[in-house]
């Protein structure tokens, strides 16, 4: 539920950029220890175990796929039954109308396909993935070799910057909370040079 709380907060964040994974994870652990709950982290690659560090619970997608597969099985069986037995029963090669043994393959394939599609849609939904030609990250290097941890400004930006420097952050960056995940607006934050291209 942490996501919902953060975005609702509404006002700006300060993000600290870290060069290596070790210091970044230590900073996260420190932030959690310091009682921060409204945390936002960017990593260029999936860091193993980061959820526990940040206190996020396991993704719900895992629980969505199996029911989808079962629904797929039921739908396909009903569809084929309706066509071959109810709508137009025709004799093929001496087989009974309801030769369910022969339907196993379409049922299996439809079920698994539905599971895969539901799985993808779940990812698209949770990660807000929409074809956006203008999406950018707070810092272009975040998808390359830099990690970032963002804390809410909470009135005293300088204190937060100092804390980051103590944790070994390379640099700090202002990030707009409301569109934290979208483009930052640099104009209104004091004293920040435009991030390098």
């Amino acid at each position: 539920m942490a996501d919902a709380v953060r975005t609702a907060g509404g006002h700006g964040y300060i993000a600290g950029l870290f060069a290596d994974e070790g210091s970044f994870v230590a900073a996260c652990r420190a932030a959690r220890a310091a009682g921060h709950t409204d945390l936002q982290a960017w990593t260029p690659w999936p860091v193993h175990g980061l959820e526990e560090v940040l206190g996020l619970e396991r993704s719900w997608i895992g629980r969505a796929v199996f029911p989808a597969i079962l629904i797929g099985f039921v739908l396909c069986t009903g569809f084929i039954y309706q066509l071959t037995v109810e709508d137009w029963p025709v004799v093929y090669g001496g087989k009974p109308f309801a030769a369910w043994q022969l339907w196993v393959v379409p049922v299996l394939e439809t079920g698994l396909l539905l599971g895969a599609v539901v799985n993808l849609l779940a990812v698209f939904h949770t990660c807000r993935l929409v074809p956006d030609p203008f999406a950018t990250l707070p810092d272009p290097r975040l998808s390359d070799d830099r990690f970032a941890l963002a804390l809410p400004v909470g009135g005293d930006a300088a204190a937060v910057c100092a804390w980051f420097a103590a944790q070994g952050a390379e640099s700090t960056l202002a990030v707009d909370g409301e569109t934290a995940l979208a483009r930052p607006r640099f104009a209104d934050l004091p004293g920040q040079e435009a991030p390098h291209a």
Partner: protein
Amino acid sequence: MTTRFWKAPEDLVQAAPADEFRPEVAAAIAELRSAHGIDQPACTGELPVPGDPALLAAVNRRGFLQLTGAAAVFALAACGEKHPDTLVPPAVQVEGMSPGEPLHYASVLRAAGHPVAVAVKTYDGRPIKIEGNPDCPVGRGSADLRTQAALLDLYDPDRLQHGPQQRGADGFAATTWAALDAAVGAALKQGRVGLLTGPVDGPARRRLVDGLVAAAGGRLTHAVFEALPRTAELRARQQAWGDRPAAGRQYRLDRARLLVAFGDLLGGGLAGLGEQVGFGELRRNRGRVVVVEPTLSQLGTCADLRVRCAPDRLEWAAWGVAELVAKALGGGAALPPAIARELDRVRAGDLSAALGLRAVDGRPALEAVAEALVANRRAGHASVVCAGSAWSPAGLHLAVEFLNGALGNLHGPQATAAPAGASAIADGGAADDLLTACKRGEIATLIVAGCNPVHGHPAAAEALAAVKLVVAVADRLDETASLAHWVAPAAHDLESWGDAELRAGVVALQQPCVRPLWDVREVEQSLLAFAAAAGWAGYAQPAAKPPAAPALSVVSRAPLWDAAVAGVRSWRETVRAAWIAQVRPAAQPLADDTTWWSACLARGVVELPAAPAPAAAPTFRGDAARIQPFAASTGYQLVLSASRTLRDGASANNPWLQEVPDPVSKVTWDNYLAISPADAQRELVGEGAVVALEVAGRTIEAPVHVQDGQHPGTLELFLGWGRTRAGAVAALDDGFRIDAFPLFARGAGAIQAAAIKPTGRTYELATTQFHDRLAGRPMPLDDSMAGHELAPKWVAGTDGKPGGRLSLWRTEHAYLGRRWGMAIDLDACTGCNACVVACSAENNIPVVGRDEVRKNRELHWIRIDRYYSSAPGADQAARLDVQVVNQPMLCLHCDNAPCEVVCPANATMHNDQGVSLQIYNRCIGTRYCANNCPYKVRRFNWYEYAKYRAGPVGAGAPLERVARNLVTEGRTTAAAELTHAPLQLMLNPEVTVRSMGVMEKCNFCVQRLRTVRDREHASNRALPDGAITTACAQTCPTRAIVFGDLNDPASAVVRLGEAEGHRAFKALDEELNTRPAVAYLQRRRGGHAHGKETHP
């Protein structure tokens, strides 16, 4: 009402229905329509039907297309687009003819070299199927191969299409009938006249010829020309019994229990439909067949005991048997002394060994044959002894006459070798004398009517050149007609009147089933016209006024020649008069002439009380017979036999006959030189190798077919192929034009010394069966194949209880109404292919051509598999002494059909009457059903075969075929299309014509089964069994194929099953549990069987 002219399409939409008929409205619509490039009449936007809102406001689909002007584009896409065509009603409704209901006419066809009584099925005035006349005692409702194929000759586009021709300086030019008749009439007035015709049988035709001879006052000499002469047979009979026979023999096999043949009775040579039907009866009476022959012939494949003998020693084998039989039977018959002396000279010890015959079960072969004959005679049964072809050596015919006489087959009520009929076949010699007379210049005018001497007779060409005026009455510019000065196009049998004598005492009427397709005239009508023009007495009649609307020819729409208008006696009236004068007194006369005449026309066949066969046994006077001395022959002997499919090549231009596989070698489209496997090994010549054949000083190149069962030292070549002027189809060859007639020399050259030299080239013969051995497959074809227990009890309906068979599915679909099934007796099947052509005619099966047959893509729905088997450990080449089984294979309509389960598009299913249906318009062509069918009976349309109606796909490369395809469609007007491909008229409208990419197979003639359902619906009474049956079962001469309702205990197929259940089996059913609806009855080997056959 102000007149408004429609300029823009939008106005069209608002046109109120009432206004649309005023002339200016129609004109505007026509103008608008042409602007859109749509040539058919305009369509108007009709207000939508009340209460059914059209999706698009007030414009139907056609209106919509018109408005957008996208007609051209949509025409391409919308294959369902309705092709505008017209409904043409008759001017006056013809009594009893409702459109869409087929009518049958009884008639006679002569395509098979002898007359056959047929019932022609016509649909809306077009003959579409030939069926046997059920009332005919000779054919009993069946028809042979060439009679079935005669239908295609009617629609042959290579017939003369544009009326009489006159040979001018540069080839032939069209002329008029009047000019032709005048010229011929003038020539007939003086000088000797020669008339060369085909066999003249039937009261009216004989009366016509006799009348012409009498009217010409001795100046006219008539002779019968036959490509396959019976001179040797007639001369031998004259030597044997002293009397000059008028006609050849016809063998009544149905009265016999044993057939001994020295050669091939069934192939193209001697046999007529009567013999084939008789063979079926012989088999059903458990009769046995013994054949002594040099090559494997069609009768050889059906033989119980087959003895190989060199061609020139056949005659002496016959005399050997005759000697043994005469000794055993005692009585007066004794061998002529000259022959007895010659036999003693040859026979050092055992004559069979001297003649090089293989021993049969340890005993000399000739003893086995003689013993069979004597035992049959002592058991009181009749037998038939016959020579192979009419042109076998005279000595062999003499021996056969002696044997038949000794065994009592020639006299008494049960005579099995009765004379054919009063005037069937004249002596072949008369034709030779007439032609020599022509060559000497004695004949001023020669009329060649209904025969083709130049093709069959070596000396005919120069003879014709020496005659001042040659008139040919022929249906095409064949070899003879192209040398004639005048050509009178002849009508096809289906377009002409006439009559025939099928057998002694059985006469039949021939009536036209369609108005002539082209500007043609009947052969006999031409003769009458010539006689009238020559002013001979009794042939002219007062000329009548031409009618208002003259009759037009069906295809070329040309006005037809009318006898009444031309002042000539009509041939129809002549036939009618002849029958009323000669036949009516003999037959039981009905009330008056017209009633009796229409009754005869309806029935087609009239049986006259036949002259009783001679009661007393004639005495054999063959002593003075001249015998050539027996000489051991060296080198190869060439045997010339009639082609088993084309016979003498009269209908060589018939694609069906060209593509039907030869019953023994399964070769299509080509002539070939058959060679024995032993010789092939020695000469290092493989299948299809091209050899140079030197015979009597001439060299012919021919591809070789290695024929199992052929006696070493023997070569066989076939007559009837290689015709140059038969038409486009006959000319379709890859460079091997092998015409054997020049070697034939009118029968004198039937057996000649020959030599072969391999040329190193090869030529792939188009065969339909590539493997001849059963290779151990579990198919118990004959009762000698031990180790395969037969289906326990074969009776309809109880062939497998659900518990009886291992099956994943417990459901049994019950057939509550009818359940169609078939039984095929392998004992009676001679492999004659009549069923193959009948099926192609009934179901619009196109011809595919030599290339496609080579690629194993022929489209026949029924094929006849011929399996060889030889005794284990037979002599060195296991392929010399083979036993054969002919197995017709068609869709077996399995209950657990492997093809229906795998079809993804619902294109094939099983209906409630047990028929496995194939729905052509639903098939998308994945071809999985053909892979899954273990019997491989499904056929696929690889190309748009149906479009090549004008002829086979032939050798054209793919692109060239597309070009020819477009050219055919390039012709816009229907008439032009018909002249190029009149074969469209022959299509059976009750069967869908399949397009490219669609699978097809036998569906038990479901259109006929549907007629059963319709008739029963109408009459509310069950149709009798066999009233309607499949095309193959109907035409099978030997009744090997029996079709019927398995749920009806009284049906023939069920009764046959109960009677012959002990030898019934279902193909591959034990192994694959397909439960076919077609059962086979094993071949009976009659004690001469051998054990499990060897692997290939």
